[in-house]
């Protein structure tokens, strides 16, 4: 993706439909009721892609919403992370789940190494540091 989208390209489904493709490459006009009936379209084709999230991040940034853009960029890294892994990391980030900073540091390493989720990993490492300062590794239940 070399072109940087702006608010002018929004909504992508109308202004830049050629850029809107499902996880398996299907375009919007290929995803029809008949195709679905034939079994040619699956739930997988109806999910968002990392590219779509990065494009929405560009649009958000051009509209002066940098924090929203960062969220979309973190989300782009999670697109391919399986649901159970996502939920496990979320659970670990809740108070008292991790018993030490090390648990979070390991989760961050896993996100970085297995899924290339660099931003998310840094975010989890930051949490480890803050939780340590604020005593959040205390026993809760």
């Amino acid at each position, binding site marked *: 993706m070399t072109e940087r989208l702006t*608010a002018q390209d*929004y*909504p*992508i*489904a*109308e202004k830049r439909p050629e*850029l*809107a493709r*499902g996880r398996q490459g299907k375009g*919007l006009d290929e*995803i029809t*009721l008949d195709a*679905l*009936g034939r079994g040619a*379209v*699956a*739930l997988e*084709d*109806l*999910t*968002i*892609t990392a590219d*779509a*999230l990065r494009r*929405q991040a560009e*649009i*958000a940034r051009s*509209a*002066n*919403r940098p*924090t*929203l*853009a*960062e*969220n*979309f960029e*973190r*989300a*782009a*890294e*999670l*697109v391919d*992370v399986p*649901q159970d892994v*996502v*939920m496990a*990391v*979320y659970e670990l*980030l*809740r*108070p008292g789940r991790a018993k030490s900073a090390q648990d979070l540091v390991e989760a961050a390493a896993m996100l970085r190494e297995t899924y290339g989720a660099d931003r*998310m990993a840094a*975010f*989890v490492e*930051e*949490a480890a540091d*803050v*939780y340590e300062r*604020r005593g*959040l590794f205390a026993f809760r239940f």
Partner: protein
Amino acid sequence: MRANRWRRFSDWDERPLRLDRFAAEDAENGFAAFSSPADPEPHVAVEAGRIAGMDGVAEADFDMIDRFIARYHLDPEIASEAMAMPSPEIARMLVDMTVPREALVRLAHGMTPAKLAEAVAELNALEIAFAYSKMRARKTPGNQAHVTNAKDDPLQLAADAAIAVALGFDEIETTMRVSRNAWSNAVACCVGAAVGRAGTLFQCSSEEAEELQIGMAGFSSYAETVSVYGTEKSFVDGDDTPWSKAFLAAAYASRGIKMRCTSGAGAELLMGFHERKSLLYLEARCLCLQRAMGVQGTQNGGIDGAPLTATVPGGMRELMAENLIAVWLDLECASGNDARPTESEIRVGAKIMPYLIAGSDLICSGFGSILKYDNSFNPSLLNGEEIEDYLVLQRDFEADGGLTPIAEEDALDLRVRAIDAISAVFEELGLAAPTAEMKGSVAAASGSADTESFTPREVVAISEAIRARGITVVDVIRALDARGFRQEAENLLQLVKLRISGDYLQTSAIVRDGRVISAINDPNDYLGPGTGYRVDEARRAEIAAIRDVLTRETVIDQEEEYARKAATGLRLKTMGPAGRGEDPREVTVGISPAFGRKLFRTLGGLALSDVLSEIVAGIAEGGGTARLVRMGHTADTSFLGLSAARLSGSGVGIGLQAKGTAVIHHADRLPHNNLELFSNAPVTRLEHYRQLGFNAARHAAGEIPDPVVVPTRGEAMGARYHARAALIHAVETSLVGDGAAPEDIALDPEGPST
């Protein structure tokens, strides 16, 4: 003897308002809306492009919330500039229509929670509402409905979802009485919401992990249950941290699901961790945090804490102020107005008005589209009972509250269609087989108390099967299509397809006419009168089209229908031009132009034949002689009476309009200085008309009788009569001819009226 109480207080004790309880202001214990001695002074320290201190706390002492806000919300390049500006000056910019929204949003990026709170606290309630209207992110206002029922009955959920869609809600939210029913509720609502039109966003408020799974299965399209809090202790007590919630925010976006956070005044107070801070300051922290997390929007404005906030002085103003901070921070705002904060209908109406007039991304973050007892979130500010009140408020103020009236005949059709659709899906997927009796009972039911449908236990089995079998929205779309619900299948597919582009993840996104509109392509561009959102002619016509509206034609039709059915017995024969009478006992009754011609009953529902008979009998009882005259030159009560008096041998006359308003007049008096006036036609009974005739005859005899008293408690001026009274009078005046001479008439029981 000295009374021990003014009884007015006993009357007041009986008002619904007195069921509300009010709390004394007590900042030490967290009961303070706008400011507390414990609130910090606004402050920021920027060192080497980094935030080194904020609102009186040095970086080393930051709690989690401070740290997250300093790290992700505050822009060090703007902070020094924004924080140096006096708060009153910023407050004036908020209400200055020439200062564009973007300039204020930019400043907010450099403002701390204490600074934002201080600036909005400068504004009174009207200024807050105005600033909100200017600062909200999306131009076109919208609304959100709750669709739930006390039985978790999927047939009723589908029917009620279809109704919510028809009413124009942009989002519908469900939750369950029994948490295991989440999957059944989700399928039922998403099928119901596909009936009628495409694009209504749907959420199933459930446990975090399950809600995300329901979203991944394609049933729900947004979430708003991600709560944040304004103190570290309440955050941890709520079992989360800013980092865990921000992670969840990214997780939702990664699944293509629109998400907003939830926060609201009073949450920290309810949880017991308020740190003696004001409600507004704590909420400002929540909102800065949400922007820092990168969520597109917030559900804000008290929410579950609204009823508590409404107990303190300025509580309702505070709810408006926190909403203003939300939109100033450029967040989509589902602006509360959900949890019902009062038993007083006046307080309910007052609460909604500023939002209705200012507009909001979602005016209610949960308008109860179902009856109060069916609202599984607890009753909303407005519920199914009050939808028409809200529709009328829209019409009164020509304000777009996001809803559109529905025609009675369409409503039942939609319900039947939705029930058939969900039944077909259940049958096709082998989940259940609803009977015709079940379906019929739900279609007509106003609420779940009227239905003979699924029991909660049967719903658990359906819900467990959907979850365990891994049924997704694709299966549901295929089932709809296979069973002939092609349009509904298309509608549902269109909604799910929106995920691919991610367009509805942007700030304030909703779907209108199949198109995503958001703060990007429909930005609020308010810069004074004529700019920003305006109700256009087409939308105005929709808003105005409430049911059962009187027109001149309906009034005339109703009168003719009445005359035909009631066989009024009023036969008036025109005898010729009326001259001055000679009989000193004569009382002339001057009737109005449409009396007995087009109009046949009073506003109180009395037949004009009976009214006339009673007056004539009363005149006779009083020793007078009655003469009837029809006036053609006026329909005004006073002039009817005065004209009649001037034709009368005694100088005393009665003026009588068809709607029942009457007057006793004297030929020597000024037009509006009559002898007796009977202005309360809706409550004037036959005995009063008889007494009127009697008194007129006594006046003719030179006596001063006791005036007739028509008892009223004010109901005669009730709003129910006004439109009809005006339309009836228009019928009268349409028959008035300039200079038309009075004509004698006679009661002619045999002949037709002439």
